[in-house]
C-alpha cells in the first residue's frame, strides 16, 4: 500500500482543474482511479476534500460525474443507462428502436427506460415482442405538458413557448443521474448532463432555437443517410454513427403461396401523409385502363388509426361502391393478421413522399417496406427519402418518381411473372440486412466501445 501525501494529491487535482478544457475532468478521474487502484492510504479524508474542490470549481454535477465514473471503472457496479422517449406510451417505429437498444444492452448495463407518461414493461413487450425483463421503467412527468395534455396524447414539443423557460429541463436534470443518457426521441431541447450522452435522430424535425442542445451530446446516432443529410443541412452538425432500425417480420415457416394482392401498410395519418387516397385512385385508374391484367388483382390497405380519423372517413367514402374483392381496408389489424397479409401479398406499394416539399413528410427510412421485403413481397415505392437506401431499383424492387412510372413498373411486374420472381428473391435478400440481430450487434459494439473508454479498460 502506498501512503500518499494528501496535500500533493490535492495540488495535482488543482493543477488539472486549472486546465480550461473538458478533458481536465477525464484526467482527474483517470488520476484518482489509478491512485485508488494502486491502493493508496491516507490519514485524512482526502477524497472528500477533492470532491468539495471539484464541486466548488466545476459544479456539483461535474463532481458527481467523476465519482460516478470511478465506481464503474473500479468495477463497483454496472454502468447505468437512461433511455428517454417522450412517446414511449405510444406504439411506433422510433419507440421500437429505443426498446430494442434497451433489450440489447440489459445484460451489460442497468437500463432504465424514461417515459413521460405511465406505461408498463409488459405493454412494451407485447408491442415489440422484446425481452425487457432486466430493464426498469421510470415516468418523469413534465408539469408543462401535464397541464395541457389530453388523455394519451403525445407531447408536442412545438407547443413550447420559446420565450418562457424550457419545460424539458426536468429531463435534463434526470439525465445527470446516469453514466450514459440516450435521447431516443430526437428532442433537441433536453440538455445532457451525463458523462456520455447519445442523441438518436430519426429526423431533425425542428429548426435551431434557443433551446437547441444537440451539439452538447457526445454522439449523434442516425437511422438513415437521408436523416444524416438533413442533420447536416438543418442543424449544421456532423452525425457520428449510422444504425438502421431493427425490422423482424420474417416468417419462421417457409415461403407460402402468394396471391394477386398489392399491399400497403401505413398509419392512416390525419394529414394524409401516407397517401392511401392516392393509392385507391391509382389502383382504380389501372383497373379501368387495363381491365384484363388487373381483373384478378386486389389492393389491401392496412394500417393503424385512432378512433376518430377524418382521413380514414374520406377513404371509406371513396371506397363506397367499390367491391371488397377489389379494394379492402384493414384498420388496426393484429400482428398475426399483418404477418398473414405480408405472406400472401405479391406487391407492396408505398407512396409516402410523393408530391411533398417538406423533407419531414418524406419517409425517413420505411420500416414497413423492409417488413414486406422480408416476406418476399416486391416493393414498388416512391424514390425519395430513406426509401431509396432500402430498395435497389431493378434488383430488390422498383422505385418510382411519378404516377406514370408507378403504373409502368406495376404493370411490368404483373405481366412478367419471371421478373416478379427475380425481384421477390432480391427483396428477401435485401430485407435480411435490416434484422434485429444486426441492429443489436451494432448497438452492443458501439456501447461496448463507449464502456471500454469510460472504464479505462484500454
Amino acid at each position: 500500500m502506498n501512503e500518499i501525501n494528501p496535500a500533493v494529491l490535492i495540488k495535482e487535482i488543482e493543477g488539472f482543474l486549472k486546465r480550461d478544457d473538458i478533458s481536465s475532468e477525464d484526467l482527474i478521474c483517470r488520476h484518482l482511479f489509478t491512485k485508488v487502484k494502486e491502493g493508496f492510504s491516507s490519514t485524512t479524508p482526502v477524497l472528500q476534500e477533492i470532491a468539495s474542490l471539484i464541486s466548488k470549481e466545476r459544479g456539483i454535477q461535474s463532481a458527481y460525474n467523476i465519482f460516478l465514473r470511478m465506481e464503474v471503472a473500479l468495477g463497483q457496479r454496472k454502468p447505468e443507462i437512461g433511455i428517454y422517449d417522450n412517446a414511449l406510451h405510444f406504439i411506433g417505429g422510433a419507440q421500437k428502436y429505443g426498446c430494442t437498444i434497451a433489450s440489447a444492452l440489459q445484460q451489460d448495463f442497468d437500463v432504465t427506460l424514461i417515459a413521460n407518461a405511465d406505461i408498463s414493461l409488459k405493454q412494451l413487450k407485447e408491442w415489440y415482442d422484446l425481452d425487457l425483463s432486466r430493464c426498469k421503467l421510470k415516468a418523469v412527468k413534465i408539469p408543462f405538458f401535464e397541464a395541457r395534455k389530453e388523455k394519451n396524447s403525445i407531447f408536442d414539443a412545438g407547443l413550447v413557448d420559446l420565450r418562457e423557460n424550457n419545460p424539458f429541463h426536468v429531463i435534463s436534470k434526470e439525465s445527470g443521474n446516469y453514466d450514459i443518457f440516450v435521447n431516443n426521441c430526437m428532442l433537441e431541447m433536453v440538455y445532457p448532463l451525463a458523462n456520455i450522452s447519445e442523441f438518436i435522430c430519426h429526423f431533425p424535425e425542428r429548426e435551431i432555437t434557443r433551446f437547441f442542445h444537440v451539439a452538447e451530446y457526445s454522439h449523434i446516432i442516425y437511422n438513415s443517410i437521408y436523416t444524416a443529410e438533413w442533420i447536416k443541412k438543418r442543424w449544421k452538425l456532423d452525425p457520428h454513427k449510422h444504425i438502421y432500425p431493427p425490422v423482424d417480420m420474417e416468417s419462421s415457416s417457409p415461403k407460402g403461396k402468394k396471391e394477386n394482392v398489392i399491399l400497403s401498410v401505413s398509419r392512416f395519418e390525419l394529414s394524409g401523409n401516407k397517401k392511401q387516397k392516392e393509392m385507391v385512385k391509382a389502383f382504380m385508374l389501372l383497373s379501368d385502363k387495363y381491365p384484363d391484367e388487373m381483373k384478378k388483382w386486389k389492393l389491401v390497405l392496412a394500417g393503424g388509426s385512432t378512433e376518430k380519423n377524418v382521413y380514414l372517413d374520406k377513404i371509406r367514402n371513396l371506397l363506397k361502391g367499390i367491391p371488397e374483392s377489389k379494394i379492402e381496408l384493414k384498420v388496426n389489424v393484429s400482428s398475426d393478421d399483418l404477418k398473414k397479409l405480408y405472406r400472401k401479398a405479391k406487391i407492396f406499394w408505398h407512396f409516402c413522399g410523393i408530391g411533398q416539399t417538406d423533407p419531414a413528410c418524406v419517409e425517413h427510412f420505411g420500416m414497413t417496406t423492409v417488413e414486406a421485403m422480408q416476406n418476399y413481397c416486391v416493393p414498388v415505392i416512391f424514390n425519395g427519402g430513406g426509401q431509396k437506401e432500402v430498395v435497389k431499383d431493378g434488383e430488390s424492387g422498383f422505385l418510382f418518381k411519378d404516377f406514370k412510372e408507378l403504373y409502368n413498373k406495376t404493370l411490368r411486374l404483373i405481366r412478367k411473372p419471371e421478373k416478379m420472381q427475380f425481384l421477390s428473391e432480391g427483396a428477401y435478400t435485401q430485407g435480411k440486412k435490416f434484422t434485429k440481430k444486426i441492429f443489436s450487434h451494432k448497438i452492443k459494439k458501439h456501447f461496448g466501445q463507449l464502456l471500454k473508454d469510460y472504464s479505462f479498460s484500454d
Partner: protein
Amino acid sequence: MKNSLDSKKEIQNIRKELGKQKETVKNIDDLAMKKIEREAGIWEYDFDELEAEIWRRFSNLEKNCDCISDENQFFEKRKPNSRFHKVKERYRVISEPFIRIKMEEDGRFNLDKQNFVNKEYIPFNLAVILTLQKMKDRINNLEEMTRNLIKDQEELLNKYFRNNSFVKEEKEESLDE
C-alpha cells in the same frame, strides 16, 4: 489509515452525498456551471406575436392602414432643372467632404454605435419583412377569392344563358304550334 476497500466505500458515499446535494439544485445553469440558453429574443416570436410587438413598439403607426390606401394615390415628381433641385445639388457638392469626415467620426468605424444601431434596426427590419409577407398573403387570399368569384360569375352567366335559350326555344316551339 485506509485501505483500497475503504476508498471504494468512500467513493460510493461521496457519490451518494453529491447526488443528494444535486437534487436540491433547482437551476440547470447551476448544475452545468454555465448559462446554457440565451435570452429569448424577437426571433422567438411567432408571426402574430411579432406583429403585435411591432404595433406596440411603433405606436405612432396607424395599425389598420397598410400599403393599400382607400384614397387615390398621386406622386409628386420634382423637375430636374427646378431651382430647388439646383440648390440641393450645389449644397450636396459643398457639404460632401464635411459629411464624409463627420460620418467616419460618428459611426462608420464606431463598432459600439454600429452594434447599437444593429440591435435596434435588425429586429425592426425583420418585422417589416414579416409584415410585408403578411400583406402579400392577404393580397394572395383576395386574389384567390376574386378568382373564385369570377368562376362563380361565369357559371351563373352560363346558367342564365342556357336557361334563357331554353325559354326562347320553348317560346319558338309554342309559336310554331
